[in-house]
């Protein structure tokens, strides 16, 4: 049972991160390779807001999430906007550069030491008993948040006008522009939403297990999850996360804990060999993978 709970929590982590990759890829065909770093930045922002609003943890939490949303939109406005309607490769390389930059900045500003935002907020990460196993409070929050985010995203993309416009712009940016849709607004929205979900992931993970610069690795491990599902599908991201998480947890339990960082990429390589467009991806995207 404990195994199932571990898998569920890890799935939630990967899925929450992976939907950020999917959102941006789906709308602009750009792989945001700085997603892990942006996620980590959000967690560090929480450290700062926690020291500013030490009496009121929820305000600190809200402020950190709001700041992360702003960071996402600003990244688009000042960096990625120039790439709108241009070559995709240039944009992808820009995100790589952004990632390296952020990693350096985070160490410069907050130092490379292990931090504990839960402590800073004055919260204790209780361990709760469920179905004969145990789950940490932050882990439970992770599962709930991921479920909410996915339902929210699904409703937004399916029924709201801007959601429909996002899907339209993802399919054919030129036609979308000719139908009066401002690509800048749509892309900024995608970046905002993507960093927002990334921030939720980063903050909850840091509340669960502390924070240092190795968090980037978790972001990187969620990338195979997005890819296994097919980069342009949210359902795929969910299922991909489940596959990667299950493989990882089972490997750790039955074989060796040292394998944990390797397994996701092993699955990724197998996937790329046998079904490069992913489980739910569009097949014609093949040349872009």
């Amino acid at each position, binding site marked *: 049972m404990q195994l199932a709970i571990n898998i569920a929590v890890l799935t939630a982590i990967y899925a929450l991160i992976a939907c950020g990759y999917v959102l941006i890829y789906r709308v602009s065909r750009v792989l945001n390779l700085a997603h892990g770093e942006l996620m980590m930045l959000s967690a560090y922002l929480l450290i700062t807001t926690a020291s500013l609003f030490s009496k009121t943890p929820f305000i600190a939490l809200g402020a950190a999430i709001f700041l992360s949303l702003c960071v996402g939109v600003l990244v688009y406005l000042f960096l990625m906007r120039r790439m*709108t*309607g*241009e070559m995709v490769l240039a944009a992808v390389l820009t995100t790589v550069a952004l990632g390296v930059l952020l990693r350096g900045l985070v160490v410069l500003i907050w130092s490379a030491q292990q931090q504990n935002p839960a402590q800073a907020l004055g919260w204790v990460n209780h361990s709760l008993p469920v179905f004969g196993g145990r789950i940490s409070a932050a882990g439970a929050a992770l599962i709930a948040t991921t479920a909410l985010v996915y339902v929210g995203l699904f409703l937004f993309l399916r029924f709201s*006008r801007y959601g*429909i*416009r996002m*899907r*339209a712009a993802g*399919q*054919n*940016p*030129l*036609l*979308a*522009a*000719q*139908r*009066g*849709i*401002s*690509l800048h607004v749509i892309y900024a929205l995608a970046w905002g939403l993507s960093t927002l979900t990334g921030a939720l992931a980063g903050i909850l993970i840091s509340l669960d297990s502390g924070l240092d610069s190795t968090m980037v690795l978790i972001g990187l491990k969620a990338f195979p999850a997005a890819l296994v599902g097919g980069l342009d599908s949210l359902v795929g991201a969910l299922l991909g996360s489940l596959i990667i998480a299950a493989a990882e947890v089972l490997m750790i339990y039955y074989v060796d804990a040292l394998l944990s960082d390797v397994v996701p990429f092993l699955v990724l390589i197998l996937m790329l060999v046998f079904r490069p467009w992913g489980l739910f991806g569009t097949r014609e995207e093949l040349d872009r993978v």
Partner: protein
Amino acid sequence: MNPLLRVEKLEVVYGRAITSIQGISLEAHKGEIVALLGTNGAGKSTTLRAISGFLGLDDARVTEGAIHFKDNSLANRPPYLITKLGIVLVPERDKVFPNLSVVENLSAPVATAGANRKRLEEMAFTFFPKLAELRGRTAGLLSGGERQMLALASALVCGPELLLVDELSLGLAPVVVEDLAQRLVEIRDKLGITILLVEQNATVALSIADRGYVLENGRVVLDGDAARLKSHGDIQEFYLGGAGERRSYRDVKQYRRSRRWYG
């Protein structure tokens, strides 16, 4: 009266190297249907694309000349701003969002400022009642004719004053083309929308147009009202297929072609 759209000596260069149209001038007055005729590569589509705006991805620029719409200069503005001004393009290919349903295709466009969106969407369905039956269908699964209807309808939802239609007849059965052409006339008559129609099929275009321009190699070689163009010898011969007797190849070099050069 000032024309609604005035294109002056327009030059478009692709990839900073290839001049695709060189010095095209044309006008469209309010409530007119204007046809742009010409063979492959004559520069018809480029002219429409220049009016409706390029993306960075197109790697194309208007290098000379001007495009005036009402009181605005349009050259090198981004497409979504041009659409907001009231010029909407129905492109030749990729004219609908294939993974969106018919209704979603109609709710994605942004209407011009001050337009009553609900009324526009209802109007789209009154002009193309067949789309109402296909509401939930994925656009990628529509037939060519239905797709063209959806493309026209979603362009109407933008609330245009000037509709640019690229190749209405491409790949469609003659009956369907006839029907769509009548629909264009209706749109003009009932909504007062000006239409600029690019066509290879000169018979269809000249049957509904008020005036026309003939392009060749990126230049306007002939213009005039539809009746005059229809009776013009060269048009008859090259575009309407109404050549008199067959000629031998020996005479080919003796084409007399009256040309008018602009710019």
